[in-house]
C-alpha cells in the first residue's frame, strides 16, 4: 500500500516536473480564480479599522443631524429636486433653529455646528462634477475637525477638498475650481469621518440634495468658509445644516438617532449615526466585492475549461505513458488516481498562490484611497475563506480532469501503447454537409468535429469571456463607471484582462491539441499534395464556427449578468456598434491565436509523422 502510494505520488510529481510549462499554465489558470475569490472574501469588514483611525484623528461625531431645505424629509436627489427652491414654510434661520434643541438633548456630551451646506456644480478644466459644499469656520471645531492630509485649512476664496473626491477627480492643492460659477483655489485636502467617502457621500444620507445638472453625478464634499458657502448657494440656493454631536455613549448612537428619526414631521431633523456612516464607507468595497465575486465565478468557469483543455491536450501526449503504466500492472484505478492527483496537486498549489496573492493584494484593492486615513491591515484569512478557496481550486482541477482520467483508465492498453488516435465519431449529417466544402475546410471541419467535447469547451470558453467583456462594456456604456468609482473600475479592468488572458490560453491550447490530434490526417493530406497553408487555413476556419456560437451565447450572457436581479433601473443593452465590434474582434483574435499553433503543427515532417504512425 505504501509502495503504491509512493509510486502514485512519484509519478504525479515527476510528470509535473517533466512538463513545467504546462504545469505552470494550469497553475495560473486556477490561481486566477482563487486569487479573485480570496480578494472577494477577504474584503469583508476591512474598512472598519481605517474608519476608526479617521474617526479618532478628526474627533468624528457620533451622530450627524441634518435639516434640509423644506425640512429633512425633502425629496430624494435628482428627479424631484427643484433647484433654488426652499420649503414654503421655513426660513434659513428656522432650519438652523430646528437643530438647536439637539445640542442640549439628554446624552449629548459635545457638539459643533450647525454648519450650512449647499450643493452645486463643479468644474475643473474639462472635468465636470457635483459638489456638496459645507460652510465652516476657519477656527478648529471641537467635534469633526477634518484631518488635513495636504495643504492648509480653509480661508476666504480657498477651499479644502475631501481627499477621496480629490483623488478621484485628480484635484491637487493649488488647482483652481469653479463652484456654482464662482472661482476658488484649492488650499488643502482632508479626511473626515462625518460622511461616507466619495463616491458614496449620499449613500446613507436620506434626502441628499443635488441641484440641477449635478443630479447625474455623485457629489463630493468640499469645505469652504461659511461666507463662501453662502455665496455659492446664492440668494435662493438650497441651504441645509449639519450638526455634529458627541454622545456620552458612542455605542448607543444608532439608538439615539432612531429615537429622533421616529419623528416624521417635515421640520424634524434627520440623524445619522457613525455606524451607518461607516457602513456607507464600505459601499465602495461592497461594489468591489460584487465585481470580484462575479469575476471569480467567471474566472473559475473559464479555469474549468482551461484545465479540461490542458488535461485533454496532455492526454494526447501521454497516451503511451498510460499504456505503459497499464502494461506493467497498473490498474485502471491507479491510472485515474495518478492523473487526478497530479492535477489536484496543481489545484492545491493554485489555492496557496491564490490565498497568498489575494491576501497580499487585498490592501491595494480595498485601500480606502485618500478618503480614510491609513491603509487597512492585511485581512485575516479565516478558516472559511481558506476552505472556500481550496474547495474551488480542487473542484476546478478534479472536475476538469475527471472525464480524461476515466477515459484514460478505460482505454485499451494495446491502443494506448500504440498511441492510436481515438476513432472519430461519425455523423452522417456532418459528413454530408462537409462534402460540399473546399478541401482544406472539409479537412478542418472533419478534424474539429471529431472531438465534440473540445468543441463544447471552446464554445463555453468564448461564451464566458464574451459575457464578462459585455458586462464591462455595459458598465462603460451606461455611465455606471462614474458612480462605481476608480477602485471598482481598477478591479473591473483587472478581471477583464484576466478573462482575456485565460481565454487566449484556452484558444491556443485548443488549437494545439487539435493540431496534435490532426497530425496523422494532416501528414497524410500533405503526402497527397495539400500544402501546410491549406491545412492551417482549414483548421483555423474550423475553429471559428464554435467561436461564433460562443460569442453569440456570451452577448446575452453578459446582458443577463449586468441586468441581474439586484440591478436597478431599466434593462440595459450594449450599443449595436459595440456588439458588432465584439463579435468581429473576438473572431479575429481567435483566428490569429489559432493560426500560430496549427501552423507549427502543420510544419512537422510528413515522413516523421507517418513513420511514427507505423511503429
Amino acid at each position: 500500500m505504501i509502495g503504491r502510494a509512493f509510486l502514485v505520488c512519484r509519478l504525479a510529481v515527476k510528470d509535473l516536473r517533466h512538463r513545467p510549462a504546462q504545469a505552470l499554465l494550469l497553475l495560473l489558470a486556477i490561481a486566477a480564480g482563487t486569487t479573485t475569490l480570496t480578494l472577494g472574501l477577504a474584503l469583508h469588514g476591512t474598512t472598519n479599522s481605517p474608519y476608526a483611525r479617521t474617526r479618532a484623528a478628526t474627533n468624528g461625531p457620533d451622530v450627524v443631524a441634518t435639516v434640509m431645505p423644506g425640512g429633512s424629509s425633502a425629496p430624494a436627489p435628482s428627479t424631484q429636486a427643484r433647484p433654488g427652491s426652499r420649503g414654503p414654510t421655513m426660513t434659513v434661520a428656522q432650519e438652523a433653529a430646528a437643530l438647536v434643541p439637539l445640542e442640549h438633548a439628554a446624552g449629548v456630551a459635545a457638539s459643533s455646528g450647525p454648519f450650512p451646506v449647499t450643493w452645486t456644480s463643479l468644474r475643473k478644466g474639462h472635468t465636470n462634477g457635483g459638489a456638496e459644499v459645507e460652510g465652516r469656520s476657519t477656527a478648529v471645531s471641537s467635534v469633526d475637525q477634518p484631518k488635513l492630509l495636504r495643504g492648509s485649512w480653509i480661508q476666504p476664496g480657498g477651499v479644502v477638498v475631501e481627499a477621496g473626491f480629490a483623488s478621484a477627480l485628480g484635484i491637487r492643492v493649488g488647482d483652481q475650481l469653479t463652484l456654482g460659477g464662482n472661482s476658488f483655489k484649492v488650499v488643502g485636502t482632508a479626511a473626515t469621518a462625518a460622511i461616507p467617502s466619495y463616491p458614496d457621500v449620499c449613500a446613507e444620507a436620506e434626502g441628499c440634495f443635488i441641484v440641477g445638472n449635478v443630479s447625474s453625478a455623485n457629489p463630493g464634499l468640499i469645505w469652504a468658509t461659511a461666507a463662501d458657502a453662502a455665496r455659492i448657494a446664492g440668494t435662493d440656493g438650497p441651504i441645509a445644516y449639519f450638526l455634529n454631536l458627541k454622545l456620552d455613549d458612542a455605542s448607543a448612537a444608532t439608538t439615539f438617532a432612531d429615537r429622533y428619526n421616529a419623528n416624521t414631521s417635515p421640520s424634524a431633523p434627520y440623524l445619522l449615526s457613525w455606524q451607518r456612516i461607516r457602513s456607507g464607507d464600505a459601499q465602495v468595497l461592497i461594489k468591489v466585492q460584487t465585481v470580484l465575486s462575479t469575476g471569480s465565478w467567471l474566472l473559475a468557469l473559464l479555469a474549468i475549461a482551461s484545465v479540461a483543455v490542458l488535461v485533454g491536450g496532455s492526454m494526447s501526449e501521454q497516451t503511451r505513458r498510460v499504456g505503459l503504466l497499464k502494461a506493467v500492472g497498473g490498474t485502471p484505478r491507479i491510472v485515474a488516481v495518478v492523473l487526478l492527483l497530479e492535477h489536484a496537486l496543481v489545484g492545491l498549489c493554485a489555492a496557496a498562490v491564490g490565498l497568498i496573492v489575494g491576501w497580499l493584494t487585498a490592501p491595494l484593492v480595498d485601500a480606502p484611497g485618500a478618503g480614510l486615513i491609513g491603509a487597512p491591515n492585511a485581512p485575516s484569512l479565516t478558516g472559511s475563506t481558506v476552505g472556500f478557496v481550496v474547495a474551488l481550486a480542487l473542484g476546478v482541477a478534479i472536475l476538469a480532469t475527471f472525464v480524461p482520467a476515466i477515459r484514460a483508465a478505460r482505454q485499451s492498453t494495446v491502443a494506448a501503447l500504440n498511441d492510436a488516435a481515438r476513432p472519430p465519431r461519425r455523423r452522417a449529417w456532418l459528413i454530408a454537409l462537409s462534402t460540399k466544402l473546399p478541401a482544406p475546410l472539409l479537412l478542418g471541419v472533419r478534424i474539429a468535429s471529431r472531438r465534440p467535447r473540445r468543441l463544447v469547451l471552446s464554445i463555453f470558453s468564448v461564451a464566458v469571456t464574451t459575457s464578462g467583456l459585455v458586462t464591462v462594456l455595459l458598465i462603460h456604456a451606461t455611465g455606471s463607471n462614474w458612480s462605481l468609482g476608480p477602485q471598482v473600475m481598477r478591479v473591473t479592468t483587472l478581471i477583464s484582462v484576466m478573462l482575456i488572458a485565460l481565454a487566449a490560453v484556452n484558444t491556443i491550447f485548443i488549437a494545439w491539441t487539435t493540431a496534435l490530434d490532426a497530425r496523422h490526417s494532416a501528414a497524410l493530406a500533405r503526402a497527397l499534395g495539400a500544402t501546410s497553408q491549406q491545412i492551417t487555413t482549414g483548421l483555423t476556419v474550423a475553429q471559428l464556427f464554435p467561436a461564433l456560437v460562443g460569442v453569440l451565447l456570451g452577448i446575452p450572457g453578459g446582458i443577463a449578468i449586468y441586468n441581474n436581479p439586484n440591478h436597478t433601473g431599466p434593462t440595459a443593452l450594449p450599443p449595436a456598434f459595440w456588439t458588432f465590434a465584439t463579435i468581429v474582434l473576438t473572431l479575429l483574435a481567435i483566428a490569429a491565436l489559432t493560426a500560430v499553433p496549427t501552423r507549427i503543427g502543420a510544419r512537422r515532417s510528413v515522413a516523421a509523422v507517418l513513420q511514427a504512425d507505423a511503429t
Partner: protein
Amino acid sequence: MNESVLLRARGLRKLYGSGEGLVRAVDDVDLDVMRGEMLAVMGPSGCGKSTLLHLLGGLDRPSAGELSVAGRRIDQLSERALAQLRRHEVGFVFQAYHLMDELTAQENVELPALLAGRAPRDAKRRARQLLDQVGLADRADHLPSALSGGQRQRVAIARALANEPVVVLADEPTGNLDSAATLEVLRLFEVLHNGGLTLVIVTHDERIAAIADRLISMRDGALVDETRLAGGTRRSLADFAGLES
C-alpha cells in the same frame, strides 16, 4: 493439465471489425508454452504475432477461445484482475522500450515492484540488483534520454524482471537496435533462459530463433509451422555475422 505447461491457448481468436471489414488477427490458435522454454514467434508483418503476444500476456482480450497462465484461466478476467496478472506473472519487453521519460533508469525498474505493493526501500534494492544484472548499475540515475537504444532495452528487460514473473513476453525486442546492441540483448535473454525463465519472443529476425528452443510461424492469424530447435548456445550467437565480441 500438464503442470509443465505454463501458457495454454485453445481455439484462441481475436477479431476486429465486422462484415466485409472483418479481420482475423488471431484465428483459432492452439498453443502450449512449457515452463523454462524459449519460444520464438515469426511471420510476416500483420500476421498476428504481436496480437497473439498481447493476448498471452493479458494486454488484450480474446474474442473467443480459452487462455490459461500457470493453470489459471485468464480469458474472462476483469481489467483489474488482468492488471494484477501483468503485475505479478508476466513481464513485457517492447520494441519501442516504452520507458517513462520522466523517470530515471532505476525508477523505471522500480515501477512494477511499487505497483505490486513492495516497500519503496525493497523496490529500490531490487532495482539496483537488476540493473547490476543487466550491466547498467552505473547508469541507474540517468534518464532514458541519456541512454543508448541498447541500454534502454536492457533497462526495459530489468523492469520486466522486477516482480520475478513466470514468463517474459518480448515483442520485437531488437527491432530498433543495431547489431552490437542486439547481441547484448540476446546474451541477456540467453542468460535468463539458462536461469530457467520462460521467454516468448516475437521477431522478424531469423538469427534470434537460433537461441530459441522452439520456433513457430504464423500467417494470416494462424499457426502454420512449428520447428523444434536444438536450443540456444553461445556458439549460435557467435555465428552472427560481424557480431563476434
